[in-house]
């Protein structure tokens, strides 16, 4: 290719980039500026992929900044052709900013409840998910795949056998760590998928010398808690939140029904639970009846118990001080503050069962439950978000998968992706 051809191609690409940015709703900008702003307010065409573009930049070794409480939690990146290309391919709105504009922006941020958090390194992510689970079976794998964020899928053997410290962030979704498969045996015991998963888990239990699935899952839960206490980040949704806590507190108690381990739940189990081992909850009461599809009173909605089931409402995200409480601020960055609720086997968390010191990130006003909580455990931290799929409020087994291309601005999925980027943030000393 001669020089003229190269020049022509270069210009065509540059023109295409500018035209694309314009077409996407972005601001018409010079071909090269000093920074690119990914707005995360209503101007953003694809919020979810904006996280992917930022994550991709971090993987390339590019330093980014997360502008907390500024335009819905915008991202500021250096103006690089590779990032413009990635944004154009993903349909992400960007705005070019020169040094003057960035100075003005920083001035405005210094005045208000805003702050810029440096993002330095792409976190290494693992998702605890069965080997044969498709990506759409879990809201987090769905969001990560859609946003273009890579992750490793790990299962019981990896948790028990390998060094989890190679990961910064682990996600759990709808696994039942009490080993009772969410008490679905009464309805689905002959369903092929249910039979397959039970056989798979039993084989795994035997491989690691455990008598039954509950024992295997308790061991996995203990390893995950150890990962957090050594400085890891854990994000859990749906049923994994509640059951992980029960498995930790009930380590030495029979909390599994007869269909899981051949013996009924210890009738005195409630009194024997050791809640000091748990991360988020204390004093919960176990659901003893094998026919009642609930684990404990931690879940506020009890979706699968007809006479207890609570209707869905909306939940509101709390606002935090970006300068003094950056962690909580990062987790609630959003372009909406009130979100539609959605069910899961664990939809919400009963307020009275939370341990003191747990930070409530979102709640339903006036309800005895909260939706989104965060806390520290040892040297690490955990975040729990209730519900299964933010864009499928009534999610049922066998329901068609959510197509995130139809929800590129989903505020619920943004909460998940906030958690993905949060471990990338560099800790700044507090200004107090």
């Amino acid at each position, binding site marked *: 290719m001669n020089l003229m051809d190269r020049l022509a191609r270069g210009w065509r690409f540059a023109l295409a980039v500018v035209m694309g940015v314009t077409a996407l709703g972005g601001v018409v900008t010079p071909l090269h500026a000093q920074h690119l702003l990914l707005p995360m307010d209503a101007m953003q065409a694809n919020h979810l992929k904006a996280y992917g573009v930022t994550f991709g930049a971090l993987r390339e070794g590019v330093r980014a900044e997360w502008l907390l409480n500024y335009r819905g939690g915008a991202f500021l990146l250096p103006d690089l052709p590779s990032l413009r290309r990635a944004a154009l*391919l993903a349909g992400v709105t960007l705005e070019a900013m020169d040094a003057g504009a960035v100075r003005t922006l920083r001035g405005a941020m210094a005045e208000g409840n805003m702050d810029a958090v440096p993002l330095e390194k792409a976190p290494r992510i693992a998702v605890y998910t069965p080997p044969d689970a498709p990506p759409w079976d879990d809201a987090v794998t769905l969001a990560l795949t859609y946003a273009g964020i890579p992750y490793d899928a790990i299962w019981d053997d990896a948790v028990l056998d390998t060094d989890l410290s190679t990961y910064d962030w682990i996600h759990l979704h709808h696994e039942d760590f009490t080993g009772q498969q969410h008490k679905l045996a009464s309805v689905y015991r002959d369903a092929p998928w249910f039979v397959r998963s039970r056989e798979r888990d039993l084989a795994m239990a035997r491989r690691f010398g455990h008598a039954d699935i509950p024992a295997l899952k308790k061991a996995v839960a203990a390893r995950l808690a150890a990962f957090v206490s050594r400085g890891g980040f854990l994000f859990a949704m749906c049923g994994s939140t509640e059951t992980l806590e029960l498995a930790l507190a009930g380590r030495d108690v029979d909390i599994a029904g007869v269909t899981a381990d051949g013996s009924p739940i210890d009738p005195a189990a409630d009194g024997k639970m050791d809640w000091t081992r748990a991360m988020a909850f204390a004093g919960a009461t176990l659901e003893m009846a094998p026919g009642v599809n609930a684990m404990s009173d931690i879940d506020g909605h009890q979706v699968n118990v007809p006479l207890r089931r609570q209707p869905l409402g909306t939940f509101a995200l709390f606002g935090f001080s970006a300068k003094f409480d950056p962690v909580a601020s990062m987790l609630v960055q959003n372009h909406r503050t009130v979100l539609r609720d959605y069910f899961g086997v664990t939809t919400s968390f009963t307020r009275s069962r939370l341990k003191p010191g747990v930070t409530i990130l979102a709640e339903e006003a006036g309800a005895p439950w909260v939706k989104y909580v965060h806390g520290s455990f040892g040297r690490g931290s955990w975040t729990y978000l209730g519900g299964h799929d933010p864009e499928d409020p009534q999610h049922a087994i066998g329901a068609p998968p959510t197509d995130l291309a139809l929800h590129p601005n989903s505020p619920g999925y943004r909460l998940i992706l906030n958690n993905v980027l949060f471990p990338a943030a560099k800790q700044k000393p507090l200004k107090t």
Partner: protein
Amino acid sequence: MIRRLIGFAVVVVTRLGAQADPAAAVLTRAMDAENQGRVREAVAAYREAIARGAVIPGVLGLERAFALVAQEDSVLPALDTLLPRFPQEASLRNAQLRALVAVGRDREAHRAFDAWRAVDPASIDPYRDYARVLLFHGRMASADTLLAEAVRQLGSTRGVLLEVAQLRAGLGRWAEAATAWRDVMASEPYYETAAFYAMQPTPVALRDSVRVRWGAATAPLGARQALAQLEVAWGAPRRGWALLAALPVRDTTIAIWEQFAQEVERAEGWGVLTEVMVAIQRARPSSAQAVRAARIAARAGADTVALRLAREAQQGPVSERRVAEAVPIELEALARLGRAAEAERVLAAAAPALGPEGTRRQACTIAMGWIRAGEVDRARRAVREAPLEDVDAVSGWLALYEGEIGVARTALRQAEAVDPLRIEVLALLARTTATRSRTIGEAYLALARGDSTRAVRAFEQVATELPELASLALLSAARVQAVRGEAGRAAALWARIVEAHASTPEAAEAWLEWGRLARRMGDRAAARARFEQLILNHPTSALVPQARRELDGLAMEERR
């Protein structure tokens, strides 16, 4: 006469009225003068009516009359006299507030409001009516302060729901406005139209907040109906129909569907309208409704649905008139589907109902059926019978098949029928100034006859003979090859387009289809590269969202 009756009734029903008969006569005189623009005379007559006891209609008349001459505050002296006599009369208080706010005497307006509030401290009326006046004058912030004061003093907004709703919409607090309007519609369903107009300007990014509040199963029916109407106005009639389609079938529902159909028809959403019409026909079948639905389905290009409905309209004992309405739609659908022989049989059977002239008018439709099938001679024979004014499309197609593309261009442009193939042909012909091309005619004739091999060859030849048509002709050839399942040959054509005609709009489609082929063949890397080329080289193309969707699909496959 009617005016006299109204005047009489007004005076009779007014609780302040005295000496009803003389006052009624004076009021009638005043209204006549007002209507004829004799304002001074009207003012005098209204004053007299007030003196004779018709206080409220008299004051309202005065207010109107003074407004005609832009002297809104001239009604105030009369009110100053009357209010001490009737301190709790809301109509008089309202008139005073309206006059004071209209002329910008805000402090006095507020004093008047305070005076009213002092007379009746537990009533919501002063707050509500004053807020209405302020809202009418676009004074959103003042109204907001006032309603906040009402909540503080009286503890609830129940009595001012409507004003709160209007206010929030006026202030652009869309989510709150949606909640308030939902509450209004729950207690007073007839406000659905007002709610629709108030919420129509909701910005795109905030429309979901309206959808959540008005579309929930627990929302009042009026709210769902208003949301459906909003979806039509926001350009998403299918979302609107999804809200209403699930309603249980009963008379109210059908009435709602009918109303929704009118909205969709105004917005020309023919596809959705067809679905609504089919639902109405299924719920309450009738031959008249079937004809109407068939006509709309034909307009939407849903030929099979139109055919079914047109036949449904002729079932059972129906009048010849109904047959005469339904048969042309049936013939049109058959012609579009290329079932000309069947259309001829239908026409022969319906001849008695259509009459000789009606039958002759269908000749063109039959001819179009033959054209679709590529039967040029039979089309030419059929069109001989047709009235001259109807022959444009037929003669256009016949000219095209014969290679007279100049004639075809003019004739097809004038044809009115909705026909995607005609649009495609016109798009091709519009790119050249040539007036003759046997090869183009051959290509389309071969297509009509189902001879895809010959069609592809002809399109490729067109690309050589008329370079200005090359990219589009090659794309047409590629489309035919793809439909035939000749993926490799189609790919070669797409490659030619993106290499030799990279800047044409056809290149975007070529990248997309070529990428899709690679994806089907399992070559994800090639597929990804082609979709990316489309986005990067043609960022303003309407196909970009499809390319992005394909990339998402690839990412999903790679994770499996």
